């Protein structure tokens, strides 16, 4: 584990460096508080720090106060190591944000034991952060496909439309539905159906850009939002998505299955004040049209402009 030592006394600094290296720490040593705060501010900077109080440029208390203002950094465990040993000093040090306090001359065994406490606190914090992230993922993603769940993809669409209106850019909304998926479930069982859904999710993500949004809208329905995508490109993009599914069979435990997808598309830069529900309803109508047209195809909800020219329209499929 990385540890920062900040001490202007070269003898203390060297002693601490050697002692902590022996204990397996990855030591970074600096001789003033300003450098210490800079190191602690780095994204992958040390999360364990041993600070002298009296230092040039910025003292240990100043570093503690500076660390408290680093909102985008994870928790940093700070031990103040100083010859200031009065009760008032200890209280002032801890009140400034230090997590522990040791007086010089230090006992190496006690110093290491206290740093181990710091390590345990950091490990506990890591565990809590990981658990929080797991919970956050579970709350926002579909458990089977790991795509965004319905609530999140619809909220994301609403946010994207707000931005589109503000910036005057074009957004493409696609509602995609697997064709005859019930037959997969009924004919081969739900486990095979789940395998198909997982592979479809993987292919959908592979067929869009990293900043586009893909969510599971319903059982075998998927909502795709292409940010900042020109309407003239919408048809080709939708076709890419469709071909990504139909282009090759999906390998399942039953064997390869040929799966196809119908897609309803709505592309516009002029959403006016449309409600998300209205937009989804309009896109859903396009999807129904794609189904009615024989499935495994793309259908547009509105005529779209090609190349930005108002005279050139791609007809509804």
């Amino acid at each position: 584990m990385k540890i920062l030592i900040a001490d202007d006394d070269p003898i203390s600094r060297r002693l601490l460096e050697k002692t902590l290296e022996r204990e397996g720490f990855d030591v970074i040593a600096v001789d003033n508080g300003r450098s210490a705060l800079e190191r602690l501010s780095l994204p992958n900077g040390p999360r364990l720090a041993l600070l002298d109080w009296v230092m040039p440029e910025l003292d240990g208390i100043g570093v503690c106060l500076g660390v408290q203002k680093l909102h985008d950094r994870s928790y940093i465990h700070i031990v103040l190591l100083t010859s200031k040993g009065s009760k008032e000093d200890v209280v002032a040090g801890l009140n400034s944000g230090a997590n522990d306090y040791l007086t010089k001359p230090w006992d190496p065994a006690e110093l290491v034991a206290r740093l181990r406490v710091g390590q345990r606190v950091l490990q506990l914090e890591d565990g809590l952060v990981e658990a929080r992230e797991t919970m956050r993922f579970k709350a926002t993603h579909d458990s089977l496909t790991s795509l965004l769940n319905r609530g999140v993809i619809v909220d994301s669409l609403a946010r994207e439309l707000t931005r589109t209106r503000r910036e005057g850019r074009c957004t493409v909304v696609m509602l995609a539905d697997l064709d005859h998926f019930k037959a997969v479930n009924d004919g081969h069982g739900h486990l095979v159906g789940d395998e198909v859904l997982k592979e479809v999710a993987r292919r959908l993500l592979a067929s869009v850009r990293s900043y586009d949004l893909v969510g599971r809208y319903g059982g075998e329905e998927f909502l795709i939002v292409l940010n900042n995508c020109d309407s003239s490109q919408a048809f080709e993009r939708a076709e890419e998505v469709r071909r990504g599914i139909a282009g090759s069979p999906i390998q399942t435990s039953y064997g390869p299955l040929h799966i196809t997808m119908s897609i309803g598309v709505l592309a516009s830069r002029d959403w006016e004040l449309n409600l998300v529900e209205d937009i989804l309803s309009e896109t859903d109508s396009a999807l129904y049209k794609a189904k009615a047209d024989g499935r495994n195809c793309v259908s547009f909800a509105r005529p779209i402009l090609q190349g930005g020219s108002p005279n050139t329209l791609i007809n509804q499929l």
Partner: protein
Amino acid sequence: MNQERDYLANAVLDCPDLLSRVDNDRDLLRELIEIFKAEFPELLNQLKGAVVRREMKSAENTCHSLKGMLSGLSGLRASAVAANLERMCRDADPLEFSVSLELLEREVGKLLSELDIFAIEVQP
């Protein structure tokens, strides 16, 4: 002057403490002695200059650094004298300051002699 007399109760160098501090690492011990020899003259000049200019906060910080270094080398007497000088600076008490400064130089001289002997004695 009681505090100055008290320092005499201490050993010039606490050898077992120093050896434990460096974890019996003789190379480290010699390295620390060399660091101190290189740093001390500069710190002493800083201290004298700050006192002449009556910059007592700066003088106090320099005494604090000296105290820490001497304490790190287990120089009990010299660190006690440095601590006394630090207090004098903090209290803006220049009385006996020059005497204490000379005392510090003497005690550091004694400490360095004992450190040099100790460094030879502990050689493997």
